[in-house]
């Protein structure tokens, strides 16, 4: 008698996984579930609100500087302010941030000045020589290639037994790259103190998420690396902050890496060099404006009687003032001497290049 083929049901299940999604505020600012502990302090929420509002005002000015030829290509955070701000606000000063090019807000929060950020995007490396968080990495321009650095930084913390955490931010396009996977895989093996955060803004320039991956969530990619991945509403700064706080605390406590997928939407162009109208229907963008993070938190704060028209106007004026001063300083930065392009190539310029430095100096000084 021929043996009956075994059905799938008869085979044992050896692993089951689940991915949870965290959100506290609905798009209209109403509360969906009990808020995390830190949110009981209204001042803490106002502080997040100010961070996001300052970012948006700064981005707006940066774009107008770019349009008038006074800044290079620039990537705004429009609609995604809650990701950078929520994550950065959960970090300690001694932690190390590894940002992507869209994370100006996280740097601002961590104490990099507006004029330093403008200086970098204005085409001057001195902008990365910031006085703020001295171990933080500069913006990573090639997508996702800083993820292995985050694992290396976390490895250094582990070797030195320092209770510090590396936090790496990248976009959803980066999750298609081997770099990110290789870093996550290694971090999982060694239970490193690193938190990976993906800003899933749905669009990698013109390529939508559905062409990036068939994965139901990006958070589940962490499961294959042996650690937890969580999806959060990336337009809910309370959710981003709470998820980051928990992930960073776990990593600091030696419990290994975490992965956070912040689901948001890129309301603006990819950068000032892009025109999203060429590939993205305006109706889609319009619909997404209803979910944006700043109005959402404002609605909640207004509902709590913690915010109103007066504070809003005052904040707007404050932001304008801070930004104007920063722009003035940025535009007044003294130019670099051309031959200084040699000066940080190596710790000490090799003799072999001394003649080239002299050649440039003579050529540029006429």
């Amino acid at each position, binding site marked *: 008698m021929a043996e009956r083929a075994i059905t799938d049901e008869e085979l044992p299940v050896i692993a089951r996984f689940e991915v949870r999604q965290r959100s506290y505020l609905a798009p209209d600012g109403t509360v969906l579930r009990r808020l995390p502990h830190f949110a009981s302090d209204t001042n803490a929420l106002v502080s997040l609100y100010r961070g996001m509002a300052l970012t948006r005002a700064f981005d707006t000015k940066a774009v107008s500087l770019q349009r008038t030829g006074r800044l290079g290509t620039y990537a705004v955070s429009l609609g995604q302010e809650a990701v950078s701000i929520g994550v950065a606000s959960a970090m300690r000063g001694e932690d190390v941030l590894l940002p992507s090019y869209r994370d100006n807000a996280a740097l601002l929060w961590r104490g990099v000045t507006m004029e330093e950020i403008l200086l970098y995007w204005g085409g001057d490396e001195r902008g*990365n020589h910031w006085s703020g968080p001295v171990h933080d990495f500069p913006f990573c321009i090639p997508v996702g290639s*800083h*993820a*292995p650095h985050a*694992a*290396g930084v976390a490895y*250094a913390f582990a070797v030195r037994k320092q209770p510090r955490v590396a936090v790496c931010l990248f976009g959803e396009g980066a999750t298609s790259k081997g770099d990110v996977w290789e870093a996550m895989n290694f971090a999982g*093996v060694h239970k490193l103190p690193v938190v990976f955060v993906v800003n899933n803004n749905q669009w990698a320039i013109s390529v939508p998420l559905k062409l990036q991956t068939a994965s139901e969530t990006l958070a589940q990619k962490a499961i294959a690396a042996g650690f937890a991945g969580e999806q959060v509403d990336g337009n809910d700064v309370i959710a981003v902050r709470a998820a980051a706080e928990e992930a960073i605390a776990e990593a600091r406590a030696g419990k290994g890496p975490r992965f956070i997928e912040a689901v948001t939407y890129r309301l603006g162009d990819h950068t000032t060099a892009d025109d999203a109208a060429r590939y993205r229907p305006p109706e889609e963008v319009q619909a997404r404006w209803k979910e944006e993070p700043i109005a959402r938190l404002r609605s909640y704060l207004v509902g709590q009687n913690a915010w109103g028209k007066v504070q809003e106007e005052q904040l707007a004026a404050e932001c304008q003032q801070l930004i104007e001063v920063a722009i003035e300083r940025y535009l007044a930065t003294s130019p670099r001497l051309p031959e200084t392009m040699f000066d940080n190539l190596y710790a000490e310029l090799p003799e072999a290049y001394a003649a080239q430095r002299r050649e440039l100096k003579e050529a540029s000084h006429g």
Partner: protein
Amino acid sequence: MAEVTLVEAVNLALARALSDDPNVIVLGEDVGVNGGVFRATVGLQQRFGPQRVVDTPLAELLISGLCVGMAAQGLRPVGEIQFMGFIYPCIDQLVNHASRLRNRTRGRLSCPMVLRTPHGGGIRAPEHHSESTEVMLAHIPGLRVVIPSSPERAYGLLLAAIRDPDPVVFLEPTRIYRAAKGQIDDDGEALPLDVAFDLREGQDVTLISWGAMVKETLAAADQLAGDGIRAEVIDLATLKPYDADTILASVQKTGRCVIVHEAARTGGFGAEIAALIAEHGLTSLLAPVVRVTGYDTVIPLPRLEQHYMPSVNRIAAAARKVCQFS
């Protein structure tokens, strides 16, 4: 003082560095329990523990990227890429990050890392295990590219590379890993980077090479001596930044130059040296600069490999030709 092979000298230098500096971390595929496929890291994990001698997952991009992150935090990582044919996923990290982290932060962060990899053919290895693509690396600003040709220089230059405050790619000539023997006093003494080594003094022709081909080049010089031709032999040792002064001083003396490398000819590092001599040493030349190199082909699998590699006879013939030119 003990007689050791080149690969043993590498091992001694790594052990010395690990012992002297708690910031040194050795990482790569099979470098731990197994001691490396060429035995370069043998015994290191037993001695210094798995946290400082790390068996990484099989991911070359990761190894180079981890080095950047570690180095930026002040560790001194020494990554191993098992064969040069597998170094290409690291190029992104070397070009975009390691070599420019200091520059793009104006010195706020730096990248004191070493990436070691076996270099070159002639060991009858499988495909992709015989590469000599040093010129690709030597084109990257901000990087150092070093290649020893003897156990003494392997030991001294590797220690210098690990102590250097900037990223170094350290190429190890596979063919002479065990064939080259030398006396090493394991005293932690480094040799200078960025400096060429004058291995043999001569008046008639300058022979320049690096890595495993230095062996054939020295043998060619012996053969030439039999014909009364006094060849000077220079081991370039550091390809980036390279020691132009030593080359030009030698060519000024001899008026003739033959460059020997096993990498393909077109755009090889020999072209850079020929251009240097054309620009700065033309008036001292008595004959055209000649390159003896691998051909502009893919390095063949073992059955034809010996026809690809520059031989002692090819080098000597080229030197005779330039000596007969004038």
